């Protein structure tokens, strides 16, 4: 090997580097987008209730305590799987869950609640505009809002029991401290 022998290692090194980058890239879930709303104040809104319910859901409801804000719709299949998890979380009474019923038909939403149970402290019916303010692009999406009304966490897609135990509850506990 002459004194320039190392130069032939360059392609191998470049290959190894690219392979490492691509391998790391395999683990990235591109369906989840970073939200610019993290650590920003939650949007101000006032949503009407579902028909027959007394109260809607507005940003004033979020003041003074840590809360979970969950967007759902009866047409959203993953929401059905998530609903069981939300019911279980509601039973622990660890954190109030607020619902944004996103672009749904009122009677379908009411039938959904009647069938699957109601984990929500309050539900507001949204025609899509408030969803845009929250940066919603795929229901279900779930936010954790701290007691000052700031969005601290966003979860895209259905919550699983693991998500609740490993992420949601520890963060709620930390924010309440």
């Amino acid at each position: 090997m002459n004194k320039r022998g190392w130069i032939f290692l360059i392609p191998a090194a470049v290959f190894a580097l690219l392979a490492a980058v691509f391998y790391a890239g395999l683990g990235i879930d591109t369906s989840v987008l970073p939200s610019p709303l993290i650590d920003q104040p939650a949007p101000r809104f006032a949503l009407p209730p579902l028909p027959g319910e007394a109260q809607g859901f507005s940003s004033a409801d979020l003041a003074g305590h840590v809360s979970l804000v969950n967007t759902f719709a009866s047409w959203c299949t993953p929401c059905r799987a998530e609903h069981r998890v939300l019911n279980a979380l509601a039973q622990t009474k660890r954190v109030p869950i607020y619902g944004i019923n996103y672009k749904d038909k009122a009677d379908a939403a009411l039938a959904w609640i009647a069938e699957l149970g109601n984990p929500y402290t309050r539900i507001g019916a949204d025609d899509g505009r408030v969803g845009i303010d929250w940066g919603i692009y795929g229901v279900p999406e779930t936010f954790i809002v701290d007691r000052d009304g700031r969005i601290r966490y966003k979860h895209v897609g259905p919550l699983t029991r693991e998500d609740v135990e490993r992420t949601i509850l520890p963060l709620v506990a930390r924010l309440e401290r």
Partner: protein
Amino acid sequence: MTRALLIAFAFAAAMAAGPALAVRPDEMLADPGLEARARDVGRELRCLVCRNQSIDDSDADLAHDLRVLVRERIKGGDSDDQVVAYVRSRYGDFVLLRPPFEIGTLLLWGGPLLILLLGGGALARFYRSKGETAAPPLSAEERQRLASVLGEGTEP
């Protein structure tokens, strides 16, 4: 002949038409100037449901909502930049089909230039080093052999 010409013309017209817009007539603004601005803004915004279409090209529900929102804000007196900033503050940089040029995207925009410079540099080095290690001149004996070989080749 006329028929072939007609077919060619129809084909050219179809090609020129471009992708169909998803903008529905009931969404459009009455003022053509404002509607044109809404189109300009809509072309720049990504539909986050279908990802690789602008909101003007997408039939998704969210794209429809965003088109209506863009038109409302334009009608309300927002500048194009203000409308884009409004949507961007909610959906982040990913909503922009054309990524902004800033610190975080420096590698994205500068990457091709960087690779060109690196490759060009490597190439320049390669050719220069090739010049340095050029073969030593032929010895008298070698030149003689070369001449005799070439001489043989040229004679019939």
